[in-house]
């Protein structure tokens, strides 16, 4: 068993992970985003920025940019795909388990941070710019 991942290398680098890493969906930035937020994973130097446009409560455009390992970048790509067209409230409700389900791989403690960086960035952005802290603590 590999130390870095939950289940070994072949489990980690599944087809869909590599596909999203090498052919990311929604990569880029938005001209004048309604929400923009950037966060890093200081341990690895992964960096993700998420830009969102929201119209009538609906995310009608989302882009991510940044650098990092395949897990962090694939997660961002998958997350963008999942939230485009959803309402901001729906996006806020995405949990850590939902994100891991999207990734569909088992992550060890170190790579977990990579896998969750995009979600963390999205949430910080979504809450940071549209609501005061504490307004919706349980989401």
């Amino acid at each position, binding site marked *: 068993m*590999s*130390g*870095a*991942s939950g289940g*070994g*290398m*072949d489990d*980690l*680098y599944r087809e869909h992970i*590599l*596909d999203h890493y*090498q052919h990311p969906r929604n990569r880029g930035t938005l001209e004048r985003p309604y929400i923009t937020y950037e966060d890093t994973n200081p*341990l*690895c*130097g*992964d*960096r993700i920025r998420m830009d969102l446009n929201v119209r009538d409560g609906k995310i009608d455009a989302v882009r991510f940019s940044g*650098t*990092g*390992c*395949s*897990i962090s970048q694939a997660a961002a790509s998958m997350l963008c795909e999942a939230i485009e067209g959803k309402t901001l409230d729906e996006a806020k409700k995405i949990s850590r388990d939902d994100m891991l389900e999207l990734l569909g791989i088992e992550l060890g403690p170190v*790579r977990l941070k*990579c896998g969750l960086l995009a979600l963390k960035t999205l949430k910080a952005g979504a809450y940071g710019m549209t609501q005061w802290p504490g307004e919706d603590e349980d989401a």
Partner: protein
Amino acid sequence: MKASDTATASLDARAVREQFPIFRAERAKPLRYLDSAATSQKPDAVIEAMDRYYGTINANIHRGIYRIAEEATAAYEDARRRLADFIGARSPRELIFTSNSTAAINLVAYAWGRSQLEAGDAIVLTVMEHHANLVPWQILAAERDVELRFIPITGSGELDLAALPTLLADGRVKLVGAVHISNVLGTVNPIAEIARQAHAAGARMLVDASQSVPHCPVDVQALGCDFFAFTGHKMLGPTGIGGLWARRELLEAMPPFMGGGEMIREVKLTGSKWNELPWKFEAGTMPIAEAIGLGAAVDYLRSLGMERVFAHDRELVAYAMERLREVPGLTLLGPSEDKRGGVIAFTLDGIHPHDVATVLDDDGVAVRAGHHCAMPLHEALGVPASARASFHCYSLPEEVDALVAGLHRARKVFAR
């Protein structure tokens, strides 16, 4: 490959390896440990020395007047003597035990820096510093309104010494700090020359020797420095112990860093007299077993011979560079083999260092991936992160082969 039966024979790394229990341990895949720059493995001799202390003479030092307390004190002070001698100190009084390099540098920043530096002064560091020799000075700089200046690096990952005279020119620099061997680039820096220029400009010289003391012969007198920090766990010793060497007159003049037991001579309710060197800087119960273990590590390294340890590192790094150049899309960071120690960092096109390390881990190859606590250096190099292989006396060429095979495999996984 090597002529092992002459007086100057190279290191017999295979025999050395047998003396490290971690390599004898049963495991599913053989351990190919290429992360000695992060921490070294520990030989039996070190582990046994610590066990002996705990099993036979465990007592607090400098206090008890019974036999095992005296023996423990003698073992602790003996370790200090051996370490002082190992780095060329004139007296063991100049060697202060700290918990690691980071603590040693912070000791200088707090005790010396805060008593000597004032607004308008400047400190010169280098772009290739480990955060341990950067952040303590940033904190001091912000507190005292002191300016930080940096020696840049050249395209080949060496210090650009042409910049130094200008950095020192206005006479405001009170300290120059530099890493002896870079933990990322492997570059061996010309400390003696930097120290000479620092002194001519009226500045003190601090050396971060975290990667040099473990790997090559060092002599603080020949280096001409004033402060010299190192860490035990990278030199086959335990974690939790390291050292600061400094010139006696500087240590005498410095106020203590931490107050408490052991560092005092006489305590009244409203004031105290400091103990003499080196104990003035060793407040509280020290890591006694660790100091004794570090003493055993010094003996062990000496038995190998530091010239031979360094030659072994360099032989491996030269071999690694040759083999790594075979890997398509691989970029080596840092200078040519003749200018570096046993550290080699690289990037691989289209594959993040983290993913490289994960694929390698699957083959039992342990390398470090990330910024190696040198974020400004990576920024200067224009890469967000790198993968790093590093060696010590127990490292073998077939571990380099496993690394190279793993890199080819990583390319295959990511080739789409």
